[in-house]
């Protein structure tokens, strides 16, 4: 699995390319963690296939970021990836959007809300 990282306004925009399966899922999880950024946008437009190992990687990343007051957004999944999200109920837990722009908007709003909270303490 190939991975590109671009930091935009404090958000790690990570483009994934390939299949997210048992042989690649752990590596992906570690590489995202290595970015040390609490706000992550995963662009899935070039991800062809995700199995339950890949799903666990998404859920683990979602949980880790949420616990540190960050957020994960998944953008542009194809129909097969959408289906595994839907059939497992992951679509009720993950934030899934249709475009990168929408994903950035969601994350920037969360960032502002979080920093706004800190300003009031």
């Amino acid at each position, binding site marked *: 699995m190939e991975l590109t990282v671009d930091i935009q306004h404090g958000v790690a925009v990570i483009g994934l390319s390939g299949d997210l399966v048992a*042989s690649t899922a752990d590596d992906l999880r570690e590489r995202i963690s290595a970015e040390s950024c609490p706000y992550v946008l995963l662009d899935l437009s070039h991800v062809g296939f995700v199995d339950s190992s890949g799903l666990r990687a998404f*859920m683990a990343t979602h949980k880790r970021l949420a616990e540190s007051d960050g957020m994960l957004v998944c953008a542009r999944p194809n129909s097969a990836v959408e289906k*595994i999200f839907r059939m497992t109920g*992951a679509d009720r837990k993950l934030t899934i959007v249709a475009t990168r722009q929408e994903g950035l908007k969601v994350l920037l709003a969360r960032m502002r809300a979080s920093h706004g909270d800190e300003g009031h303490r």
Partner: protein
Amino acid sequence: MDRAKLAISFEPDFRGVDAARKAIDGFCRGLFDDHEAGCRIDDLCLAVAEALNNAVEHSGARSIAVDVTANETNVLLTIANDGTPFDPTQYELRPSIDDCEQLPEGGFGVAIVRELVDEIAYRYVDGRNLLSLGKQLRARGEA
């Protein structure tokens, strides 16, 4: 009457699972090339990947084989491994995405397999797990 067959065998590792899934995907798409069948092939390949992942991760098998046969409308796969007996048709589990990381071994994979295939059958014969998965890829009478 069988239209085509494919036989795959590999040592139990995840790269072998990927290769097997892609071979099965290509085999099916070569025979069933319409859009509707494409979506069903996606489902079948996910089910096969999950079943194979479970065999690699949990069975202790030394070898895994997949036999695929296709007729005009259906594909039938039989996954054989020489690992510890495991019958996914008897696996009682209603996985929750909240427990994704704490599920008993293979929990989500088994649920996905059962959801995505039309037929599933299991036998343990001569020291081998034999899991058969069937899926209709085209309705009878369609071109």
